[in-house]
């Protein structure tokens, strides 16, 4: 079966490009995959099903959504909130009317008025200030013949948004942990936080909790790895909390080998966010592969991680206190770290193993390409047999047959 594969690919530096670089070889063992060159307008001739990786970044995904809108297919929904993508494909192309129409279609007249406010620069861009309140997924969902998602959270939100086609929940594939030297950022317990440094990653809360934990456990080092978002005043916060001189290790953007080394040299990984856009985290997946205990926000995909792998912190008004307690536990108890780390590695090998993920992808693609034909043939044969013995539509007998078919997912 021939699959046209639309995705950012290396050397593009996106998480989804890395994801596809991992997945495609395993998927090719199961189906005939053609990776479509960037900018292609539609699937190659002879394609049985097209697969579109869609995320919120218009630079990486606008061409993919353009192709999807010409030739519907299966969409891998990496983010549920797509406002930034939609803005890039409308406002970014000087098509404000399209943006207003989409805002009105999903959010009524109020949405249209807010859209006007954005276009007139009277209010901040919604894709930066409140994207979670205006996710705009329909722009993509209406062209999807099926969805692949990574969480029940996104599945449920897609259903709530009115998507009625097949949805397959497939785990994010895990990179095998490479053998890299462990780069230690401190002599005591190292808590690593990898990713862009900003408020939505809850870095202010993490800094406050770290300062609190260090009162009892000065051996704790917080390692922050990633570029700082413009406008995020990291240095001032560090000064205020007394972390500027001691207790903090800092690295900006690092390449992949160093990323793994720094993660491997961490004892605990923290990956927080609020609000969630429905995304997964490549850092968390790498942490699972490395067998690291995790602290995550109790939101979206992160909330679905097993409890024996991740401590979860709700983004509520006691978030800092909860985070402090979680870090205190993990800093003080090496046995807990070891048990959670072992569970994490086991989860990566079982649920997120790339061969298993590729098999689930293949099933979703094969169902998308041929499932309707199979269902039609089954229903035709059963209904003909029923009619032959005098069972007509809308009778109790016909309803029972329909119920039984539905029970085993044949109807």
């Amino acid at each position, binding site marked *: *079966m021939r699959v046209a594969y639309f995705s950012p690919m290396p050397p593009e530096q996106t998480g989804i490009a890395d994801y596809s670089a991992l997945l495609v070889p395993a998927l090719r063992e199961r189906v005939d995959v053609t990776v479509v060159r960037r900018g292609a307008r539609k699937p190659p001739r002879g394609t*049985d*099903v097209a697969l579109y990786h869609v995320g919120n970044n218009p630079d990486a995904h606008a061409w993919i959504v353009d192709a999807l809108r010409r030739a519907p297919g299966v969409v891998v929904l990496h983010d549920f909130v797509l406002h930034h993508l939609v803005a890039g494909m409308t406002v970014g192309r000087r098509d404000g009317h399209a943006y207003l129409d989409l805002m009105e279609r999903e959010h009524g007249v109020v949405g249209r008025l807010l859209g006007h406010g954005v276009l007139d620069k009277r209010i901040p861009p919604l894709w930066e200030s409140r994207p979670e309140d205006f996710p705009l997924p329909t722009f993509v969902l209406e062209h999807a013949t099926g969805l692949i998602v990574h969480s029940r959270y996104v599945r449920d939100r897609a259903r709530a948004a009115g998507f009625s086609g097949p949805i397959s929940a497939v785990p994010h594939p895990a990179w095998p942990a490479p053998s890299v030297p462990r780069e230690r950022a401190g002599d005591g317990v190292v808590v690593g936080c990898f990713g862009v440094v900003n408020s939505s990653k809850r870095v202010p809360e993490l800094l406050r909790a770290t300062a609190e934990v260090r009162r009892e456990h000065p051996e704790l080092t917080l390692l922050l790895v990633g570029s700082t978002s413009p406008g995020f005043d990291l240095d001032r916060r560090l000064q205020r909390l007394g972390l500027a001189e001691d207790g903090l290790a800092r690295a900006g953007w690092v390449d992949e080998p160093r990323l793994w080394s720094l993660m491997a040299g961490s004892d605990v990984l923290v990956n927080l966010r609020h609000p969630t856009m429905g995304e997964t985290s490549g850092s968390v997946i790498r942490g699972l592969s490395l067998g690291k205990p995790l602290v995550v926000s109790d939101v979206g995909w992160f909330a679905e991680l097993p409890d024996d792998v991740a401590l979860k912190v709700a983004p509520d008004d006691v978030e800092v206190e909860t985070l402090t307690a979680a870090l205190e536990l993990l800093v003080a108890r090496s046995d807990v770290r070891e048990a959670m780390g072992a569970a994490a590695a086991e989860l990566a090998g079982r649920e997120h193993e790339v061969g298993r993920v590729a098999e689930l992808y293949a*099933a979703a693609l*094969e*169902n998308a*390409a*041929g*499932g309707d*034909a*199979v269902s039609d*043939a*089954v229903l035709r*044969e*059963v209904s003909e*047999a029923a009619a032959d013995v005098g069972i007509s539509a809308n009778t109790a007998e016909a309803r029972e*047959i329909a119920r*039984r*078919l539905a*029970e*085993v*997912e*044949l109807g």
Partner: protein
Amino acid sequence: MRIAVLRPQVPFARGGAEIFTDRLVDELRARGHEADLVSVPFKWYPGTRVLTQAFLWRMLDLDEADGRKIDVVVATKFPSYLVRHADKRVWLVHQFRQAYELDGTPLGQFGDSPEERALRRKVQELDRVALREASRLFTTSRNVASRLEASTGLAAEVLPHPPQELDYRCQGYEDFVLSVNRLDRAKRIDLLIEAAARDSELEVVITGDGPDRERLERLASDRGLDGRARFTGRVTEAELADLYARCLAVYYAPVDEDYGMVPLEAFLSEKPVLTTTDAGGPLEVVSDHATGLVVTPEAEEIARALGWLREHRDEAASFGRAGHAIAREVTWDRAIGRLLA
């Protein structure tokens, strides 16, 4: 208890699953249960017939029969476990293997078209849905349990059952090697014939019948084995017990077999078993140089191993006796005790 044993029936075919289910009914009755066999014909081709024929099981009402409750149903192989019942116990002989490990092999059924690929996935989906409903889930071997877990994520208890009842005995170790099998390609009788072609002292007796018989007889003739490879066709139970009793060893090398009763039958006759590293279920009881020999699936290796057994009859007998100790532990009392617990 009132127990219905469920068996899909391929008209005019009879094999291990039929022997097993007939015997299960007898053994349940012998223990005071009211047991009966429920069969529905099964045809798995062409196209979506595999699904519509499977669906017939879903329409059955086995809650009660003639006004009296059926306490337990015991489903055995695809698609009998699609049945609905409050106490559906599955004792899985095998799934529909063409949709799993045989897919993409010459023994597979589904082609490369999107419709056929989707059809295979629907069969898998049926398994997931129907097997998840089971109140207890057993498999006849670890091999079947492993496949089930890999394909559906469902964990099953391994519950082996004894082989058919024969007058098992050992009357020495004559020169011939015995093959007991339905003659189809998956059983790889051709490897035994090719081994005989490489060892002029090797004599083989091939029992059973099947679609591969003509090809195998021609192969034996082409290799000049006249007299050294004897095809008996189907034999009676008494004849089979006699062959087991007298043979040197039993050859059993199917591809990734579910369980395979032949090794246990050989062991009950105190005979060693020669099998291959890729045989699947048989490897759960045949251990190299303990209860038999395990070699790679190549004629050369098989010829060498059978020659070794011929030259080391004391060891052959000792392997057979070690197998006997294993086989006699597999009893109907134990199996039914766990099935109905």
